[in-house]
């Protein structure tokens, strides 16, 4: 940590790097070390010499080894990778080698720029006017509170309906069956038999229904008359015909019946 801040404030040259070898434990990984070395070139990160940077890094690692410092494995892996990159950049090679060492060098440069940008952004964030360090909230705010008060909602109807319901519950229940206006089957058989008795030609069953205004009664009469017609057909007293489902049901007097 102290190593890093020292570096940033003093922008040390290469001689400083050697002094800093001792504190290698303070680096935040090989990329951090590379970035510090890159900054030593004192040019814009977009213009650094990757080859020089690779040399700086490899020298650093060699020095560290001479001082018998324990280096974490990833520093050595990075060294190996950079050595490979260096040879790729220096040695003549076929054009289609993959990955292209120039491309790799560019990516390394981009990574350094990204890390540098974030490091700088972090420093700028920390340097802002920070709450409870540079700017302060009110020391003892009164506080605002919302007291929730329940407004019970009930209407007079709810009240009296509840009471009526209670009282009704208390009384022994009496059930009434409402008298409904229907056409009993007996009556339908008698009626259809009588009316069809004279009917030679086909007629729709509806014409035998009573003309009544009550739709419930008409429905009942239709149902009873239909069942009556089936019964009468079974006895041979009438004949039924229907062209298809839901088409009019036709009825006439049984042709073989007295």
């Amino acid at each position, binding site marked *: 940590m102290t190593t890093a801040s020292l570096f940033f404030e003093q922008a040390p040259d290469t001689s400083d790097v050697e002094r800093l070898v001792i504190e290698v434990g303070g680096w935040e990984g090989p990329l951090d070390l590379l970035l510090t070395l890159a900054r030593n070139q004192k040019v814009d990160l977009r213009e650094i010499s990757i080859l020089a940077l690779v040399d700086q890094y490899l020298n650093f690692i060699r020095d560290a080894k001479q001082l018998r410092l324990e280096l974490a494995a990833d520093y050595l892996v990075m060294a190996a990778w950079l050595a490979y990159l260096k040879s790729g950049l220096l040695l003549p090679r076929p054009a289609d080698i993959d990955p292209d060492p120039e491309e790799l060098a560019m990516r390394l440069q981009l990574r350094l720029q990204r890390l540098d940008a974030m490091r700088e952004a972090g420093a700028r964030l920390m340097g802002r006017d920070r709450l409870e360090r540079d700017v*302060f*909230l*009110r*020391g*003892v705010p*009164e*506080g*605002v*509170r*919302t*007291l*929730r*008060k*329940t*407004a*019970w*909602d*009930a*209407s*007079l109807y*709810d*009240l*009296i*309906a*509840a*009471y*009526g*319901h*209670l*009282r*009704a*519950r*208390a*009384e022994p*229940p*009496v*059930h009434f069956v409402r008298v409904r206006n229907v056409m009993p089957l007996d009556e339908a058989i008698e009626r259809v038999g009588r009316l069809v008795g004279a009917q030679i030609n086909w007629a729709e069953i509806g014409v035998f229904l009573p003309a009544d205004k009550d739709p419930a009664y008409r429905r009942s009469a239709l149902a009873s008359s239909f069942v009556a017609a089936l019964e009468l057909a079974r006895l041979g007293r009438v004949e039924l015909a229907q062209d298809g489902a839901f088409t009019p049901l036709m009825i006439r007097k049984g042709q073989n019946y007295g």
Partner: protein
Amino acid sequence: MAEEMTFEDGGEALDGLPIGLPEEARLRALEALLFAAQEPMSQADIARHLGELPGLMASLRSLAAHYAGRGINLVERGGKWHFQTAGDLAHLLRREREEPRKLSRAAIETLAIIAYHEPVSRGEIEAIRGVQISKGTLDVLLEAGWVRPAGRRESPGRPLLYATTAGFLAHFGLVSRRDLPGIEDLKAAGLLDPVDETVMQLALESRAEEE
């Protein structure tokens, strides 16, 4: 903000020149200090932060004058200064929010029994409803201000009696309890017809959803 200031405690400002911070900067500093302070500050407290300021009292008064009539005021209490929100706005800071809630069926039935039979004991209410009342049910009615304790019945156990309140009459738009429809009225209105419990429940639920 940049009003001319008048030095009231003359002594320090005899020469007519403000010492130390220019007045505007001083007012800003005072304002910030008193705002962030954990407790009201005396002039000595202020001086510990801002240094000795001749004419500090005048500055404080000037600042207090600036805030007079605003939503926050700078006030002095026993020689100590602090900011507080204007007294007439206190109601905004403690806002009561009414949340409409439907009374439970147990509560409305209990209320109906009390209204029709008052004064009535808990035991009698339970006898009419045919089930025990939970403690919360009566509490809700008491809290709503519709029901009040109305003495004790002079019978074994001296049970507490309940009756309705004027608030009850007001809420339900009744002049007096005599306005409640009687049993015959209820019967005529079909409210005493045997009710299928599930149908009743459905009706209550759908009403609740509508609202």
